[in-house]
Each structure stands twice: as structure tokens, then as C-alpha cells.
């Protein structure tokens, strides 16, 4: 009996070995990512002492993302205005359009969509840049010159992302509300006063706006940390860098959505 099942047993054994190897690799990668993140935080001194480095990176990840953020914000707000009006007028409460647009933007869409755009616009660029620096051995060259690449290259990009993200999310929300105002008040003709007054009485500074800012800061940390790690960890080949760039966008988008659920569950659980 045992001889007839020999090859099946070896297949089973090999698949279990495979699983074990993958688990070990996964845990090792998580550990590496954690150590990398910690090292970035510990070597952040240079990013603030030589703030010019960080400003340069804010330009590349923040300022250059402005166009896509502003235009998408405007259009998301305009679509919200149109769709919200369609639904609200069925119940004769078009005046609540301002509340609908503002709350959905400030609480959810602003931080989340801005974060998704930031991940694909700036996160992918960070990964590709660092991956190529590694592939062309610029990072090793820095180490040879006794320049710490984490302090010189990684930390300024990290802090630039963390600073840029809340500003971009705020701009996205503001643009979206302006878009909703354009469509709702200027185009459709909802009463302007009710639009703003109902919005102001429904949107709370601490509960809604501040929580949105906290969300965007958390997303900024998550996206830049993932992008930097993927770049630093990328295999030093053309294929490796392209794979790492793709992984950055996919992973950070998923992490943003998952984190958003967790944060929302904590922030708005007790609200009516």
C-alpha cells in the first residue's frame, strides 16, 4: 500500500514545504519592512536639519500632484452635486445638497480618493526612483562615501509625503465642495443660503474636518512608507523595478481602503 502512495506523499510534502517557505519569507519581509520603517524614523534628523532636501521632495510629490488632485476634486464634487440633486429632489429636500456634498467629501472621498491618486501619482514615482537608484548602485555608492542613503534619500521623501498628503486632501475636499456649489447652486439653482447654512450646521469642525485630516495623515504615512520600502526592496533589474512599482500602487491602494474602514469604524461609530 505504502509504495503506491509514494509519489502522492512527495507531492504533499513538497506543497507543505512550499507553504512553509512562503510563510517564512512573508514574515521575514514584514520584519524587514518594520525595521526599514523604524530606521527611516530614526534617521529623520537630516530631513529636518537640511530641510531643503525635504522641500525638493515636497515639490516632486506634492506640487506636481496638484493638477490631478484639483481637477479630480472638482469633477467628483460636480458629479456629487448632480447625483445628489437627482436623489434629494425626490424627497423635496434639495437644500440638503450642501450637507451631502460636504459630508461625503470631508469625511470619506477627500482623504480616500486623494490618497488613491497620491499613491498612483507620487507613490509609484518614489518606488521607481529609489528602485532605479538601487539598480544603478547609487545607493551603494552613497554608502561607500559614508553617506547614509536612508537619511539622505529615504527620510526626506517620507516626510515630504506625510506633509503633502493632508494638504492635498484638504485641497481635494475644497475643490469638490466648490464643484458641488457650481453645479448645485449656479447650474441647477438650489438656494445658495440654504446650501451653505445647512452645510455649516451639519458639518462639525472636530468631528468631521479634523477626523478627515487625521485620516489623510495616516494615509500619507502608509503610502509613502510602502512606496519607499518597495523601492528599497526591489530586485535590481528592470523587471524588478517595474514589478515593485505595480506592487506599490496595488498594495497602498488596498491598505488605504482597509485603513479607511478601520479609522471610520473608530471615528464615527458613536455618531447618529
Amino acid at each position, binding site marked *: 500500500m505504502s509504495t503506491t502512495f509514494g509519489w502522492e506523499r512527495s507531492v504533499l510534502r513538497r506543497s507543505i514545504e512550499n507553504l512553509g517557505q512562503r510563510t517564512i519569507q512573508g514574515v521575514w519581509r514584514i520584519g524587514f519592512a518594520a525595521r526599514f520603517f523604524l530606521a527611516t524614523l530614526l534617521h529623520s534628523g537630516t530631513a529636518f536639519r537640511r530641510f531643503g532636501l525635504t522641500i525638493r521632495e515636497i515639490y516632486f510629490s506634492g506640487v506636481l500632484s496638484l493638477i490631478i488632485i484639483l481637477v479630480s476634486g472638482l469633477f467628483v464634487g460636480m458629479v456629487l452635486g448632480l447625483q445628489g440633486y437627482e436623489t434629494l429632489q425626490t424627497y423635496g429636500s434639495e437644500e440638503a445638497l450642501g450637507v451631502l456634498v460636504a459630508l461625503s467629501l470631508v469625511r470619506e472621498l477627500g482623504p480616500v480618493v486623494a490618497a488613491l491618486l497620491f499613491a498612483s501619482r507620487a507613490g509609484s514615482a518614489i518606488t521607481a526612483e529609489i528602485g532605479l537608484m538601487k539598480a544603478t548602485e547609487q545607493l551603494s555608492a552613497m554608502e561607500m562615501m559614508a553617506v547614509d542613503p536612508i537619511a539622505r534619500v529615504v527620510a526626506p521623501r517620507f516626510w515630504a509625503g506625510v506633509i503633502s498628503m493632508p494638504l492635498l486632501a484638504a485641497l481635494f475636499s475644497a475643490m469638490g465642495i466648490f464643484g458641488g456649489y457650481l453645479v448645485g447652486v449656479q447650474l441647477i439653482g438650489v438656494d445658495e*443660503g440654504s446650501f451653505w447654512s445647512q452645510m455649516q450646521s451639519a458639518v462639525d469642525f472636530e468631528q468631521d474636518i479634523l477626523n478627515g485630516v487625521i485620516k489623510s495623515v495616516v494615509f500619507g504615512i502608509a503610502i509613502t512608507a510602502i512606496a519607499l520600502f518597495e523601492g528599497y526592496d526591489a530586485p535590481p533589474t528592470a523587471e524588478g523595478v517595474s514589478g515593485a512599482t505595480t506592487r506599490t500602487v496595488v498594495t497602498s491602494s488596498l491598505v488605504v481602503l482597509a485603513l479607511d474602514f478601520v479609522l471610520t469604524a473608530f471615528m464615527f461609530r458613536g455618531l447618529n
Partner: protein
Amino acid sequence: MSKTVLDLWVGLFVIAGVAALLFLALKVGSMSTVNTSDSYQVIARFDNIGGLKSRAPVKSAGVVVGRVADISFDNETFEAAVTLRLDKRYAFPKDTTAAIMTSGLLGEQYIGLEAGGDSLKLKDKDRILITQSAVVLENLIGQFLYGKAQEGAPE
């Protein structure tokens, strides 16, 4: 790109971001101050304002003529003191009545002004003397049920 141009752009970016945050805090959130240009204020006292909110519209004949500027509670008369900010273009007689109305069955509440026949006009800081409180739906239902019960009671 030269360093100063880069600094300039980042500076502009940060200013725009902070301005957007301020816009969200002041214009969208409830930390707003209202401008006082081209308007005059009158005060109306109500027994019950229902769900009236600050910045709700003030309408006369269905046209928006002003906004509710402030709502406070008078602890001596135990009434609600509602400050109305009316547009300078519209002057109302002294014996104008103010009533709290609801747009639609469940819509937002607003103040309806009905002009009287006095030749004197309302001025800044004047009081509207004749007011009508908000209709509270629950009270209405309660009164109706009470009336029905009275009808059916044996003499």
C-alpha cells in the same frame, strides 16, 4: 530647476493647502462669522422656535429677504429671541408679523414675514411684536387625539 523657483512653488502649495483647510473650517464647518454689510437687524421673540437654525432664510411672500442671524434664550421672559438680518432694500411696516413655517412636511424651517398696514417702517434693532411660534407636529397630533377622546366621552 533652480532652488528658489522650487521653494516658491512649495511655498505656494503649502499656502494653498492651508487656505483650503481654513476654507473647510470657516466656510464649510460651523466656525463662521457673517458679514454685516447692507443689512439691518430686527428682533422677534417666539414661545417656541421648533427646529429653526441659525442662517435659516427669512421669507416674505415666498421671496428670501434675509437670514436668521442669531438665536438665543431670554431667561427673563423664557422666550426665544431670534435676531433677523434683513436686506436693506426691503423695508417692512412696524406691525409686520413673523411666523415660523416649514417648507414641505419635513423640510427645513424658515421665518415668514407678513407685512402690516403701518406707515412707519421697521428700523435697525427694532422688535417685531406679533409672532407666531413653530407648529410642533407632535403637539398637534396630541391635541387631535385629545379632542377625539373628549368627543367620545359620555356626557
